């Protein structure tokens, strides 16, 4: 089984926000929810770099560890998904996540946040693959259609890579070798190691 990962090549990202738009349109994400965002460092000065960030589907996911209702699970592909029927909207996953991935449709008084929403690696949720309920709650399940995440597919400069971790690491290694610079893989240390246990699939909670 492949271990799915995201990789953003900061030497290539041009901050076009195509990935953000692709994600919103693919999943019909509600207003105010941003499953993906592009962050620019040193904006307008030498050394400007942009990075596209979403859920990194961590090996040892902090969101999963702190969830009081245990609504997260990991697929065989290493994708971290959650069950919106169980989610109580406490916000703990948002406090724990290093990447700011968990989103809430509202930030209301008395802690009324609604159900958490986040990047699914275009892999839907616990509902039946490609069902109407799955689309309505989690967006399209492209992995079930044999496709890769829309954001990475749509990336105009192929800065954002999404897929089998070994394959995208090879692509990136070749790039670094050819251009002779820019070997920094942002977020990989935090999301996939070192010293983090390998992704062990945990079955979807039976709801």
């Amino acid at each position, binding site marked *: 089984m492949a271990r799915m990962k995201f990789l953003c090549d900061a030497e290539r990202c041009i901050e076009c926000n195509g990935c953000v738009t692709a994600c919103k349109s693919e999943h019909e994400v509600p207003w105010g929810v941003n499953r993906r965002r592009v962050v620019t*460092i040193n*904006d307008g000065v030498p050394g400007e*770099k942009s990075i596209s960030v979403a859920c990194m589907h961590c090996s040892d996911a902090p969101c999963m560890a702190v969830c009081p*209702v245990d609504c997260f699970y990991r697929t065989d592909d290493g994708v971290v998904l959650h069950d919106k029927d*169980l989610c*109580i909207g*406490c916000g703990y996953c948002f*406090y724990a996540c290093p990447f*700011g991935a968990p989103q809430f449709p509202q930030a209301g008084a008395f802690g009324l946040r609604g159900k958490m929403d986040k990047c699914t690696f275009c892999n839907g949720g616990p509902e039946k693959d490609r069902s109407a309920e799955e689309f309505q709650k989690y967006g399209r399940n492209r992995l079930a259609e044999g496709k890769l995440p829309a954001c990475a597919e749509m990336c105009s400069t192929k800065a954002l890579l999404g897929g089998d971790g070994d394959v995208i690491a090879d692509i990136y290694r070749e790039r670094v070798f050819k251009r002779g610079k820019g070997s920094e893989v942002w977020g990989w240390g935090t999301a996939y190691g070192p010293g983090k246990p390998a992704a062990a699939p945990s079955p979807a909670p039976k*709801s």
Partner: protein
Amino acid sequence: MPKLIRLTRWALAALVFAFPAAAPAQGKPADNTQAERQQTQPYNNAPVWREVRKEGQEYVTTVKGRETGVLVQSAGETWRQIRNGPVTVWGGFAILIVVAVLAGIYFSFGPLKTHDKPTGRLMPRFTQFERWAHWTSAISFCVLAVSGLVMLFGKHVLLPVTGYTLFGWLASLLKNLHNFVGPVFLLSVIVMVPNLVRDNLPKSYDFNWFAKAWAMFARNEHVPSGRFNGGEKAWFWGCVVGLTLLSAVTGLILLFPNFDQTRATMQLTWIFHAISALLFMLVALGHIYVGTIGVEDAYQAMRSGYVDETWAKEHHEYWYNEMKSGARSAAGGAVPAGAPRAERK
């Protein structure tokens, strides 16, 4: 020991990030190291990457919202370690230990009884106002405690028993109850406290009560006290005033995410909220024990507001003397002469 040092370091780190002043203005270039590096080594982006790995830096992004410009916040991992580590483990064991100790006291010594027979004459101990305020805070406290415990321990204790569907439904209900009952508890305490302050002011004989408390429970020795004894006063100032204040302030910060608190604020606040609430529950277990099964007829005072004269004399002798000598009127205020007396049993 190294673990403890690490924990302290985490707590300090969390404290530092709690101050928004530590975060620089959004998109402001930190320095021009990269520009200088570019002159000599055009391909070297090391200064940029050093920058990126820094904690809590806000950069430029088109996505609106709180902290969307932050690339990585490692404090979340720290918070996770504190929550899933000491707070859950020590908190859980502390509750089990206190329950075991109370059960031990009950089954080895039994409930505390009066030496003499009840006289049948009742004395007013709590006004109706005091009882209503106390019942409101008592019930809301129990709701908060149970829902809080389910949110911290339910995943480990309840979920394996109930299964996901029932637990998800229950947790959702309890989370909302927790959020709406919290302010009720705070209000009831605010209403209750001014009434009870005067009789909870510490007196010299309260120290004597503490010295003899164990002998009282173990050998049923007589220890005189005012309207409230040393233990009740410690509970009043430490928990009803102190811990309510701490857990209410932290609770209100957590309750209103609409004011755009940062994650660092929420993490630190959560830690204080959880610890103060757990301490509150631990002491409350003792308070509830002596108020119900631990001391015979103490519950009558909470329920009806009246106690037997024997009970008053043996548990709160100075108060009994004051009442008898007419140095003070009925508890906390007016109970008109000839007011209906509560029947015993």
